[in-house]
């Protein structure tokens, strides 16, 4: 029966299930301007909020005079910390175990910090009133450098004065947040001290920002009659927001409804809780009217969560043959004025301990120190699982540096050290169990596809021509083999504010054979409505086109921890498959009853149950769905529904091999990506077209970060990159052509073997672009130059190497 007859093929194709490049069902509304974003929401009587923000990076707030603002017709309220204090809402908890001022409580710690919240009848009046609020500041010394902060007498967080114990252990200094250690320090030092070869390098992974196209915002509506609070907002984790709001406001959780409508990109920026959300809620409670707050681009770049800002120093040791023996990594992490990282509670530096990468490194040690400075708070995972971009950048640079130290080809060095296929599941020195991988196969495929040897030959010829003065363009070959860790995560070690990081799916099959499934996640552009329907189509035998996927409304969706860290497919996708299997199990009983055979005498076949050995006797899932509502089946409840809460046994470990070929104009510092080859292995591929789209998007954000995108401050703590003129957001013009490829190594523990892919290209792309820049200058003695590799910094590198006459 199970041979693939053409008829069976056709039935499978009709489902548009796993492996189908189904067109995105979301796109019709997005491309026609019919999306429904937070700023599209207009409620009757709605007021508008806007912030008075600090122009200073560090100052005492001497006084706030609201009078002139309140006198402006149309201004309803001006809230300050004093107004929030009686409610206990002038501070709020951060996801990292710290607390953050909602409105300036006596002082400000970064430029752009929220000082007062103006509420007015329309958006224009609110903006005018902001100008009328008179704030008197007394400037304080500014600390923008974490190393200086750790030495300075200036106390940034006076609220923590005298507290030597933080949320993650002892604090060494008043500007110190935590130290997080992993691995074997003594063992690693011993290995490194006695090694044949040791390479040491320091690097700075600069501060950047996720910069989603839609900025953050919320509409809060407190219904004073029935006591219900509704919050529409740009939330990557709506359920967690509901619980947090309940805990800090005291409103019972059933009286809070949180809705994430369409979200225009998140990339980690919309995981945390921002003062604007809290102020909208308070303002709605105070005024009895709905209040909308939507930040503008500059506010988004200046005040919402940044990413990276990691100072990393590494030591890597190897044998004479190039076998790596040990890795030591020390990080100083600049968190800004508050620690508003969005990491699982027990991981103050996220999964930085994935920094042994794709390599079999027997001994390793990692230590991370978190530090306060006068910069915006954050440290979120911008298109990556928690701190994984930092980890992969670190190891992929250390490999290159080791290759330089040993005068070896960096591709060969990687190949010698890859974890071998037969070593999986692999226990890493820093505590992870890699689920599956076949790194050599992926690597060799890419090396052959790009003709790596040919590229090296061409590069060597170019260097010679350059030395003879025949060209001013150098050629760089950027390599990267990354291993990600995504899908947080097992409840036993991953939680956020005590909420276990499981996820969920609830399915209802309608009598006529269509269905609705609701999940605890929320798409921000990933295409969940498309792909989750495909998972279900294959699991339950109903066409994906007949399955509605709904997310983001806490009144209807089952509890889940939301979408970030590539966790939707690994966790909610697994829940979806498991819920589908519950549906199928019940369907099997119904089919057997209808076919008058024993349960075990029917088997699932694409879109139906057939009697074993008698394929002409079957019941389609559509027929079964109807039967579930109209037949009295002994021993079975009517209806066909299921819910699954899935706690993954492990993370998933997607990987990939990337090569970037870049030409660099030595005189102007302009880089041009000639070729980019990306092979990704995300396990089972649900929708190849969506994967391709995710790869293109992630690589483009990687290009941005590597080649120019940064949040820069001057010494006074002024943000120098507050608009898109200076903050690099690439357009189609700057984006090269990407060639994509794949291998498939399914996750052994995931119900359908899928691993998650949205972040891989970013994680792997940044080091690949950066390595290409480094590689171009390697023949002239370059070891390390920090990102972003914008024109002037590349020029400066060339200049320092004496390449300009």
């Amino acid at each position, binding site marked *: 029966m199970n041979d693939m007859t053409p008829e069976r093929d056709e039935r499978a194709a009709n489902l548009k299930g796993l492996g189908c490049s189904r067109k995105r069902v979301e796109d019709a509304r997005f491309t026609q301007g019919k999306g429904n974003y937070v700023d599209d929401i207009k409620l009757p009587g709605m007021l508008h909020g806007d912030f008075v923000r600090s122009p200073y990076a560090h100052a005492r707030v001497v006084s706030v005079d609201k009078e002139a603002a309140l006198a402006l017709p149309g201004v309803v309220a001006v809230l300050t910390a004093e107004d929030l204090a009686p409610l206990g809402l002038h501070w709020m908890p951060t996801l990292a175990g710290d607390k953050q001022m909602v409105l300036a409580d006596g002082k400000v710690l970064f430029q752009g910090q929220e000082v007062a919240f103006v509420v007015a009848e329309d958006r224009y009046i609110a903006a*005018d009133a902001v100008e009328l609020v008179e704030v008197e500041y007394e400037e304080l010394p500014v600390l923008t450098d974490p190393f200086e902060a750790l030495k300075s007498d200036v106390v940034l967080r006076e609220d923590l004065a005298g507290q030597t114990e933080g949320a993650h252990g002892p604090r060494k200094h008043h500007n110190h947040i935590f130290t997080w250690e992993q691995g074997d320090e003594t063992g690693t030092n011993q290995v490194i001290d006695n090694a044949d070869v040791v390479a040491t390098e320091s690097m700075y992974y600069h501060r950047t920002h996720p910069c989603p196209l839609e900025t953050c915002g919320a509409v809060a509506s407190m219904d004073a009659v029935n006591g219900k609070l509704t919050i529409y907002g740009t939330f990557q984790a709506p359920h967690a927001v509901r619980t947090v709001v309940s805990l800090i406001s005291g409103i019972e959780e059933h009286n809070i409804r949180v809705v994430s409508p369409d979200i225009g990109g998140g990339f980690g920026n919309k995981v945390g809780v921002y003062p604007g959300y809290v102020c909208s809620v308070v303002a709605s409670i105070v005024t009895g009217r709905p209040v909308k707050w939507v930040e503008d681009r500059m506010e988004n770049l200046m005040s919402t969560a940044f990413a990276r800002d990691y100072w990393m120093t590494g030591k890597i040791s190897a044998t004479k043959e190039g076998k790596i023996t040990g890795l030591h990594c020390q990080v100083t992490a600049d968190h800004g004025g508050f620690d508003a990282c969005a990491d699982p509670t027990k991981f103050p530096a996220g999964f930085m301990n994935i920094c042994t990468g794709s390599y079999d490194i027997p001994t390793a040690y990692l230590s991370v120190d978190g530090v306060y400075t006068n910069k915006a708070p954050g440290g979120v995972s911008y298109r990556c699982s928690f701190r994984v971009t930092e980890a992969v950048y670190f190891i992929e640079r250390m490999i290159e540096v080791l290759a330089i130290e040993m005068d070896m080809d960096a591709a060969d060095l990687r190949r010698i050290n890859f974890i071998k296929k037969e070593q999986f599941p692999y226990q890493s020195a820093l505590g992870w169990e890699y689920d599956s991988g076949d790194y050599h196969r992926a690597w060799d495929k890419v090396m052959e596809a790009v003709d790596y040897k040919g590229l090296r030959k061409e590069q060597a010829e170019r260097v010679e021509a350059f030395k003879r003065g025949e060209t001013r363009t150098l050629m760089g070959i950027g390599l990267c083999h990354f291993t990600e860790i995504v899908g947080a995560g097992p409840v036993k070690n991953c939680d956020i504010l005590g909420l276990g990081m499981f996820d969920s799916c609830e399915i209802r099959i309608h009598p006529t054979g269509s269905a609705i499934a609701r999940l605890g996640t929320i798409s921000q552009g990933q295409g969940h409505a498309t792909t989750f329907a495909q998972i279900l189509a294959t699991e339950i035998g109903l066409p994906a086109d007949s399955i509605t996927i709904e997310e983001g409304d806490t009144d209807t969706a089952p509890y889940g921890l939301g979408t970030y860290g590539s966790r939707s497919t690994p966790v909610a996708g697994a829940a979806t498959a498991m819920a589908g299997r519950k549906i199928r199990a019940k369907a099997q009983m119904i089919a057997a009853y209808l076919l008058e055979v024993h349960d075990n005498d029917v088997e699932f076949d694409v879109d139906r149950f057939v009697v074993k050995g008698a394929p002409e006797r079957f019941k389609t899932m559509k027929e079964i769905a109807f039967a579930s509502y109209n037949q009295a089946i002994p021993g079975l409840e009517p209806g066909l529904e299921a819910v699954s809460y899935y706690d993954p046994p492990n993370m998933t470990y997607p990987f990939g091999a990337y090569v970037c070929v870049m030409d660099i104009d030595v005189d102007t510092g302009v880089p041009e990506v000639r070729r980019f080859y990306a092979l990704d292995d995300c396990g089972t591929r649900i929708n190849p077209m969506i994967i391709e789209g995710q790869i293109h998007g992630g690589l483009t954000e990687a290009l941005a970060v590597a080649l120019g995108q940064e949040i820069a401050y001057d010494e006074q703590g002024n943000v120098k990159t507050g608009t898109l003129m*200076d903050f690099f957001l690439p*357009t189609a013009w*700057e984006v090269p052509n990407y060639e994509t490829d794949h291998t498939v190594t399914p996750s052994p523990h995931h119900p359908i073997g899928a691993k998650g892919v949205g972040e891989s290209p970013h994680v792997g792309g940044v080091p690949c672009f950066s390595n290409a820049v480094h590689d171009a200058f390697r023949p002239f003695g370059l070891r390390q130059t920090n990102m972003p590799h*914008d*024109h*002037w910094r590349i*020029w400066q590198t060339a200049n320092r190497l004496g390449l300009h006459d």
Partner: protein
Amino acid sequence: MIPAAFDYYRPTKVEDVIALLEEHGDDARVMAGGHSLIPMMKLRMADIPHLIDLQDVSGLGGISIEGGRIKLGAMVTQHELINHDGLAAAAPILRETALQIADPQVRYMGTIGGNVANGDPGNDMPGLMQCLDAQIELIGPGGTRSVAARDYYEAAYMTDRADDEVLISVSFAVPTGGYAYEKQKRKIGDYATAAAAVQINKNGGQIASASIAMTNLSDVPVWSESAGAALVGTGCDANAVKAAAAAMLGDIDPSEDNRGPVAFKRHVAGIILSRAINRAWERA
């Protein structure tokens, strides 16, 4: 990004524009395409209580090529400059320059008059107008007058134009010889890190005349007479190009910003100019 309140006027006659400017003085400003002015208003760096839209004012548009002169009405958009075939044949450097300004959306709105009047050192057209030795025609309460682009710019956002004057056109002799507009920028939509406008006339294998202007390397556009002079009489050999670049470096005064430090900008200015000269020479 919400501007302060303003009154909006949409007159149809230049006289009415001037009357409004006279009445409101410094509180009034004309708006052409709005793509420099509106961002400033939204950032509240410009507070303009009286905004006078020029879109409906008659007599400010049109491209004419007559008697060896080209005249561009103030309200001619960058998009129109790019798509005018006669202009592309007569003065191809205009299209080459306009194509390097921002993106199509900005170019549909941005005008030559606004670009030239604005006085932002980042604007590309002022340098080009200096290279082409354009005349800028202004009208005010006392009638019209003409001023050379090379004399027009005083400092950033400070020009020879009085508050109650309106720029009505720019005009210049149909350029001859080889040309190039070379611009380095960080991305589409960015102003120049360095840009160079070059026109070269060749006679018997030698450069007969050369005009060179640089953009965003000082608080005003820089027409470098000495750089042009360094080329005249040479065969545009490497040494001549070097000498021209060196002369130009004596005239610019870049400042550090997010595009890079001064040393970088000076180096790039030299490179960009050399490339522009070589390209113009090839086309001469």
